[in-house]
């Protein structure tokens, strides 16, 4: 325990612990990929942690033949529209909340930030009621509206912190040049809060893409099914065909994996957004 470590020795204990968690993290993912490449027959006889003796893409073909692309496009639509709306309305609101300086603005900001403490899970029953009343049950719009609302507090928090750092002189000189609110928003606020917009966009895209609760509660037909919910229904549909279920899981994660490879930096900062630092 005490004083065992001397400054220059390599941290063997730390490395071993790190390695242990690495194995814990990687094994399930490795198992997922491997099993999705197995044939259904082999699944029952082969060691699940050894590479398949005869790798096959049959499981993937089966998933693709079973409406996977429709669920994928539903997910893309919901994610893109939700994130676009969240970014637009949050940026507009942040501009007002920071630059207005009125008591109304300060009060509104406080209320919106209180929203950070609302657990989504606890509000699903009224949300469900509301969506039914609006006649939106079982539509893609039903998934977007609450997702947008619950994204606003964190988005506003992040963007407001950025807009605050824009020098007041820039606003004043643009105003003096006769620029209106929209001009200022478009040519001053938007470009200068770009990093915040990217962070919010990445964070919310991941949230919406992987969201399970709203689809579970607010939709039922397969025409509006999104990917996470489809995994759950595939599990019922394919039942004993485990490789097919896991192929669907892998396919659903591929777009995010691809995004991770391209923009890891943004994903990391997006995930710790507003909490870290």
């Amino acid at each position, binding site marked *: 325990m*005490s*004083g065992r470590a001397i*400054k220059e020795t390599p941290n063997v204990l730390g490395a071993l612990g*790190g390695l242990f*968690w*690495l194995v814990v993290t990687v094994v*399930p*993912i490795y198992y997922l990929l491997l099993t999705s490449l197995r044939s259904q027959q082999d699944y*029952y006889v082969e060691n*699940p*942690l*050894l590479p398949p003796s005869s790798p096959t893409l049959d499981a993937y073909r089966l998933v693709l033949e079973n409406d996977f692309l429709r669920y994928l496009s539903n997910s893309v639509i919901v994610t893109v529209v939700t994130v676009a*709306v969240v970014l637009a*309305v949050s940026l*507009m609101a942040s501009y*007002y*909340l920071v*630059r*207005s*300086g*009125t008591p*109304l603005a*300060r009060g*509104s900001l406080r*209320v*919106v930030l209180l929203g950070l*403490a*609302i*657990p989504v*899970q*606890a*509000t699903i*029953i*009224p949300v469900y*009621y*509301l969506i039914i009343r609006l006649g939106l049950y079982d539509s893609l719009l039903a998934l977007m509206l609450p997702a947008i*609302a619950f994204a*606003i*507090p964190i988005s*506003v928090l992040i963007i407001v912190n950025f807009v*605050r750092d*824009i*020098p*007041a002189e820039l606003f004043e000189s643009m105003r003096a040049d006769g620029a209106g*609110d929209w001009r200022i928003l478009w040519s001053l606020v938007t470009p200068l809060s770009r990093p915040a917009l990217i962070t919010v966009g990445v964070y919310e895209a*991941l949230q919406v893409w*992987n969201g*399970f609760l709203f689809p*579970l509660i607010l939709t039922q037909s397969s025409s509006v099914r999104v990917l*996470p919910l489809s995994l*759950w229904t595939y599990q019922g549909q394919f039942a004993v065909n*485990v490789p097919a*279920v896991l192929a669907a*899981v892998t396919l*659903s*994660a591929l777009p995010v994996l691809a995004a991770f490879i391209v923009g890891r930096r943004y*994903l990391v900062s997006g995930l*710790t957004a507003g*909490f870290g*630092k």
Partner: protein
Amino acid sequence: MRTVERPGAAAPTRPVAAVRRARTGPTFWMAVPALAFFALFALLPLGGVAVLSFMEWDGLGTPRWAGVGIWIDTLTDQATIDALWRTAVFVVVSYVFQAPVALLLGVFMAGRQRYRAVWSVLYFLPLLFSSAAIGITFRSLLDPNFGLSRALSPGTLSTNWLGNPDLALYAVIFVVGWCFIPFHALLYQAGVRQIPASLYEAAVLDGAGRVKQFRFVTLPQLRYTIVTSSTLMLVGSLTCFDLVFVLTGGGPGEATRILPLHMYLTGFRSYAMGPASVIAVLLVVVGLALSLLLNRLSGSGRMQSQQAGA
């Protein structure tokens, strides 16, 4: 930077600046779309859940007023009491598992060694998957016949983890930890990297070894990160639904029927939306109490102090 005393620092220099800015500030309409979305689909439901907790509703017809009877019935229902107790165990054990692992992992990831950077990329992977994906993968991995139990020599791990009522809750806690530890490790990694190197240099000069550096430099410097992470962990476990739902659906029997599951099953399977709303209100109240308590314990204004420390 002259920007400091401007809008951001709202409280101290407000009065003079506010009057001047009121004329040139943007119109309220800019905020209306965001506020409308938020009010309609987040604030209104929050109030709605309180109202619905006094009503009888089967999810289809029109809710009818039923009064405090629902509260009394729900709170004295053995199933609710069991779920509360189970949730307490779930939250506490999850925390005891996640917090130390995330802290140590974060400190480890903050190291500048090359291999640690590479490993960190892999540690991140669980964050990319949806709860549904993780739940389904682990269901199959923990299958007593074809999963891990077959991969390893007979005997080891060959238990029906998710099917045994005595083990299921702990198996779920492990999977939830697998899923959320990387996120908290990222928070700690960012926290550790903000600790000034000079503190460590001073500690080394004082003859502090690795353990003492961790104890007397890293831990105290991370106190705000610890509070943030702990709050998110506790409230996250309290409201954890998706993963448990996919892993076990609350079963076997009621072994993993924690509060959010209890709420869902009561409302959307038994069509008793009133009692389900009571449970939802409990979730909100306990969640808020936890956040406030932790904030109080840590002293106020953690955002600022953290920035100031950087």
